[in-house]
């Protein structure tokens, strides 16, 4: 039981965990709701989100996107992030699920 920390943990289906800044993770509307203490999900108490449908490779890319998005929040003409072709369909599913 921890109070709102600056970092949260995202765990993939194959057990990899990624510790990322809360502000970055909350770019995803789904994660933001998971972690919102006023909604009282278990995730908001442990500051940990477990994704049974996202594997480590994809989740890593998602975390990369969080930071990429945060970095370019206020700039324009942002260069596109590089997405490897073999990952893009899975990543698309994950992005749809996470609403980013």
């Amino acid at each position: 039981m921890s109070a709102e920390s600056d970092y949260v943990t995202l765990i993939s289906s194959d057990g990899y965990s990624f510790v990322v800044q809360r502000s970055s993770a909350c770019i995803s509307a789904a994660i933001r709701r998971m972690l919102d203490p006023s909604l009282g999900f278990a995730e908001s108490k442990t500051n940990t989100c477990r994704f049974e449908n996202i594997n480590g490779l994809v989740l890593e890319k998602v975390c990369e996107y969080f930071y990429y998005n945060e970095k370019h929040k206020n700039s324009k003409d942002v260069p596109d992030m590089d997405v490897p072709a073999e990952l893009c369909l899975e990543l698309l599913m994950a992005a749809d699920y996470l609403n980013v």
Partner: protein
Amino acid sequence: MTGRRSGNRIRGPQSALTDFLAANNISAAQIRDDYERRRRDAEVNGEGPSNAAAEVGAAEEEEVASEQPESEANKKKRKREERKAIDEIKNKKQAEKKGKGKAKKKQKKKHGSDDDDSEYENELGNEMYKKARPAPGQFEHCEICSKRFTVTPYSKTGPEGGLLCTLCGKELAKDEKAAKKPANKPAGRKRRKLESDRLDGFAVGGAKSLQQICIETVAKYHDDIEELGDMPAPIVERLSEIFSKKRMLKPKTLPLFLRPDLEEVILHDAAYLEVEDYKQIFAVVPNVRTLVLGNACQMKDEAMAYMLDKCHNLQHLQMYAPNLVTNAMWQRYFEAAGGKLQTVKLKWLDAAFEDDTVQTMATHCPDLRRLKLKLCRRIGEQAVNAIATMPRLEHLSLQIGRDISAEIIVNLVKQRGDNLRTLSLEKFLDADDTVLETIHDHCHRLSKLRFSENDTASNAGYTKLFTEWKNPPLSFVDVNGTRDVDNNNPDGPEEAIGVSSSAFKALMKHSGSNLKHLDISSCRHIELSAFIDVFNGAESYPMLEHINLSFCSRVDTTVVAGIFKSCPSLKKLVAFGCFDVADVVVPRNIALIGVPRAQDAIEQFGVGIDVDEALGRMIEVGA
């Protein structure tokens, strides 16, 4: 290295044979490589060590020649040394082969299959005019580090034309790759793309969404994808939109969007599809409820009949330009399947679809709620009369090329008006104040109203329409192009034609609280004072997101500033041809498009400044 050779390099002349081989997809480079490989294999597989040894070094050869009579021990020692040398070469080659193989594969993936041919061609061209390089297996001195190394078929050519050792070759390749990257995307094209995205209205500040990035990547690799798996329908739809936009929706990629469990097939560009492909759609997705076929120019009666045969649940039909479908087929279709149809949207029909067809549709589609007929050349007043009898119509959009008299439209609005949510009448040139009056009297449920490109109805008519109208506030209003056009009298007649000051004020008073989309472009009689009154900063229009006031020539900088202040949700303001607008500082998350300052980009996009700060800066500039 390939990048350096492809591109706009000048090449020497090629022989007819080379051209012929290239045209037939036979690559001399490949033949040569195969030959080299066979030769290498033969060497390695023991045509005798003597053969290989001959290549190991000329010095050794001489030695062998001079020392013909030698002792057994010496012989053995020599043989051992030879074998060692051969093994070394073998190992080295194998290691290099492995490394190179990987690298090459990666490269292929990156460049796509198209580039490979030209790569070979170019290599061939260069190869022909070069000094023969040392045969593989020989020793050479590296051009850069001067180290002695074994030449392999993969040894790279250095800047001076000599050969490089493996290490230096790798360095060179790395440098070239790095140098190549920025050249890939010329800044100009990127900027134009961005500019075009802005004008399309989907570029906002910050990064794109991850979904957008992924969808674009998927579209880029469309050739390699076999199926999309269990993608949710909205994403499939989005992908199909992007495939359409990039004109990649072809018979080959079509199956990606067909799944028996889907209920909608949305193909905005079906121009490449032929009858067989249409049949495939209906065979794979028989439960389709929503069918959208843009540019369906190869849709024929045969495919329509097949659809009639297979798909019994079709409710929403939208087609653009299916001009090979005959009148008889349309009749048959509406007679057989009309009962279930709720939406019909047809555009660009030149060859068929007559008044009679619309009559049949009106009779056989009792459940039709949404109807859009645009640019259907052969329909006229009778068709409008038939539409007036459709009992459940809620959304109606019409653009008809023939002249339709005001009485016919009045009759239509009288009959259908009380049930309509959407009424869009584009380019009905003869519609006059009586039509507006009928709308005022009979339409009480509208949320979207378009009455555009008309130079008959007067300002007084519009003012009456929006004054004490029982209809709740509209969310979408488009009255663009309602003005008087007369070159001899540019200011218009005394009694203004089209939406002018008083009508605009009445419109904003009636709908301002709920209005989301406002298009008053080319309503050039609206005075500056009306704009200032409406967007005075004190009045707020909380929902307003899109405004188009292009060619409203009286608009100036204060109006734009007032709009920023009065519309907290504003996303896009289009102001082409407003020449009094200058020195605008655009607040955060708003796109201002079209303000003419030659030295600036055509669109200005607010970054990091909120409305108050932007207004503050504007005042500084003005003072």
